[in-house]
């Protein structure tokens, strides 16, 4: 690990990250040892750091491999979160530092990597990330270690989880899927083709799209699941074209999407219907791949990216934006700003830090109960939009209600707060521009 003085940011150096991948088979033998250590001494039970120490924020995500861009986005959101907390003096006087934990995007590789990190990282008191591809294997590990986590995963299975340390301010994938359907119908398209890659994250959207389109009186012209990174999808593309869709609701990685839509364009005489996809595609990779295939005009006009809503006019958003631009490790803040799911990492770090302040403890098992308290719109609670505001109110012994980048947080008994949705489009420079908002209640209604 390479420590960057001043920024409070720790980054996995590339060579180290590669070694993690290379030693995966050896590391696979370690979980038993790691679990033993974790069971004997959960991170939450370790000695409380003195004020002036450092608390590590575990960013659990794909830092290497095909999904590494998600890890980059997560790291940026973490950098912004610790920036605002550290600028206000830290959590209980302790500076925060991002500790990148590479789950490689692969559930099998994730287990030894996360187990090792939980067993060996010092003062690991909060975690963020834990996305869909690896959530099923990493969340139980973190929960067992009694470390509160703000997860960006979209798995429906976590809608009613009993994991005490799990918190989520983003919608489950089926809700995302239903939001895709709502947006497509709002745009006037009633006949949609569904194209989803066969991975856990993308497949999770499918039931919501089907249910949403059906409830809204639309029609699914064809529903295909495609393998990732194939040399050609021509046969599938022909079937999709033959179904005469008005809109393509699609989720796939940049390489697969580029191959698929390149062939679509070739086989459909240069015409590709509008695409509705998720905001997780709001990445330079996706933009670059699609732009070279479909052209800048198409990419900026005909691709809608639907995901968690963030309000650019809110105080919290402005603080988040300022923190992103002020963080020296964030290379493309404009891009990070548009991905709602990622902003939940920023909110999560602020919320967990405020919970530590309220609980007067950095121990996970202690401050976990205060996470709901600092986001509760209870009578008399002072509404705060930044960590500094929240800390000041807590010092005045006030109850607080943190309203973050994604708006009011209202956790249900399973620690989920899905919020609203919004649709965005690419600007020519790759930054997002807002197209509209979809009320969370509208989506919930579709799913019954």
């Amino acid at each position, binding site marked *: 690990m390479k420590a960057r003085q001043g920024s409070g940011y720790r980054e996995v150096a*590339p*060579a180290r990250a*590669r070694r993690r*991948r*290379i030693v995966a088979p050896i590391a696979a033998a370690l979980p038993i040892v790691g679990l033993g250590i974790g069971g004997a001494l959960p991170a939450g039970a370790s000695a409380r750091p003195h004020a002036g120490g450092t608390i590590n924020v575990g960013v659990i995500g794909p830092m*290497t*491999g*095909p999904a*590494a*861009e998600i890890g980059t986005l997560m790291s940026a959101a973490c950098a912004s979160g610790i920036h605002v907390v550290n600028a206000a003096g830290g959590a209980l006087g302790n500076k925060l530092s991002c500790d990148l934990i590479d789950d490689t995007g692969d559930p099998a590789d994730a287990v030894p990597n996360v187990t090792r990190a939980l067993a060996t990282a010092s003062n690991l008191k909060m975690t963020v990330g834990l996305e869909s591809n690896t959530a099923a294997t990493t969340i139980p590990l973190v929960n067992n270690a009694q470390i509160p986590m703000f997860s960006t995963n979209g798995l429906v299975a976590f809608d009613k989880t009993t994991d005490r340390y799990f918190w989520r301010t983003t919608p489950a994938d089926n809700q995302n899927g239903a939001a895709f359907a709502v947006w497509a119908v709002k745009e006037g398209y009633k006949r949609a083709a569904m194209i989803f890659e*066969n991975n856990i994250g993308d497949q999770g959207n499918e039931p919501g799209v089907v249910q949403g389109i059906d409830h809204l009186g639309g029609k699914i012209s064809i529903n*295909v*699941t*495609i*393998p990732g*990174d*194939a*040399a*050609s*999808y*021509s*046969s*599938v593309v*022909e*079937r999709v074209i033959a179904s005469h869709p008005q809109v393509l609701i699609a989720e796939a990685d*940049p*390489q697969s*999407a*580029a*191959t698929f839509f*390149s062939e679509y*364009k*070739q*086989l459909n*005489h240069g015409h590709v219907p509008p695409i509705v996809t998720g905001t997780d595609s709001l990445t*330079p*990779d996706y933009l*670059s*791949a699609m732009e*070279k*295939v479909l052209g800048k005009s198409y990419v900026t006009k005909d691709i809608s990216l639907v995901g968690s809503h963030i309000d650019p006019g809110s105080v919290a958003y402005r603080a988040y934006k300022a923190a992103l631009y002020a963080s020296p490790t964030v290379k493309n803040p404009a891009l990070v700003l548009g991905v709602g799911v990622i902003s939940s990492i920023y909110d999560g770090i602020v919320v967990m830090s405020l919970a530590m302040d309220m609980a007067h403890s950095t121990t996970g098992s202690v401050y976990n109960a205060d996470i709901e308290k600092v986001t509760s719109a209870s009578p008399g609670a002072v509404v705060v939009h930044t960590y500094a505001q929240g800390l000041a109110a807590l010092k005045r012994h006030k109850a607080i209600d943190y309203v973050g980048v994604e708006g009011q947080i209202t956790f249900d008994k399973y620690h989920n707060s899905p919020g609203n949705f919004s649709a965005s489009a690419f600007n020519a420079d790759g930054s997002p521009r807002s197209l509209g908002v979809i009320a969370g209640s509208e989506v919930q209604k579709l799913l019954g």
Partner: protein
Amino acid sequence: MKLLIEAIGFGIATGAVIALGAVGFSVQFGISNVLNITYGSMMTLAAFVGYAFLQLNVNVWIVMAITSAVIGVASVVFNRILLEPLKRRGTSFVGIIIATVSAAIVLQYAIVVFVGATAHSFGEQSGRTLTVLDLVFTTSQVIIICTTVALMVGFHLLLTRTKIGRAMRATSTNRTVARACGIRTERIIDFTWLLSGAMCGAAGVALAITTVSFDFTLGSTFLIYMIAAAVLGGIGQPYGAMVGGLVVGIASQVAGAYWSPAYQDVIAFVILIIMLLVRPRGLFSAGAVTRRLANT
């Protein structure tokens, strides 16, 4: 019926890309007796070398030719530096496979260090769409198919009709005896790695053109298909690798057209297993080919 014909056309186009790599892999394995897993990472390297030349506004087909030469030389160097010393030390067949696996991982992540883990794109290089009797091809697919066929025929003629080809076969059969007969086996091995490496380079660029967007996993993703095609056709047999590639390509596209595309690869590999159960040594078995070659 139209759907089937179209799927076969798409399969031929896909299979040609797989075959391009499979022919080189098969010949390399057949003659040098090394199951070179680094072949996949070499294809990835080729894609990135090609990408670098493409940034200089060089025509994509000239890029393919240049990259082939670069990867051909790189393959010779790789064999000289790593594999030949291992062989001289008496490393077992499996030991050498493990060495190539290790080298593949090292090369793959060396690429990441230099170009990052993000996706890159050759851009749209497919050219015009051509339709012949319901078979739909793009210009780039036609060029790749023709290149594959030409290289396959060239390889076959080289092996069967030339002095150096006979020397390659002799070296493949028994290097010690070949050397005793006056064949300069080191040069023959170098020549084999140069040619098969060039095929590998061409395959890497062809893959990058076909998939449009690619990252550092490109070669390793497709290596398994190329190994399957080579094994299906019979190791060391250029025609076999070509046919194997076409079987894999057509099976996957027909499966994608009629069943769930999610299982198109599964169906292709089920066919592979069934065919190997019927003909364990591949479609073009070594015995039959040896007899045929003996008569040339």
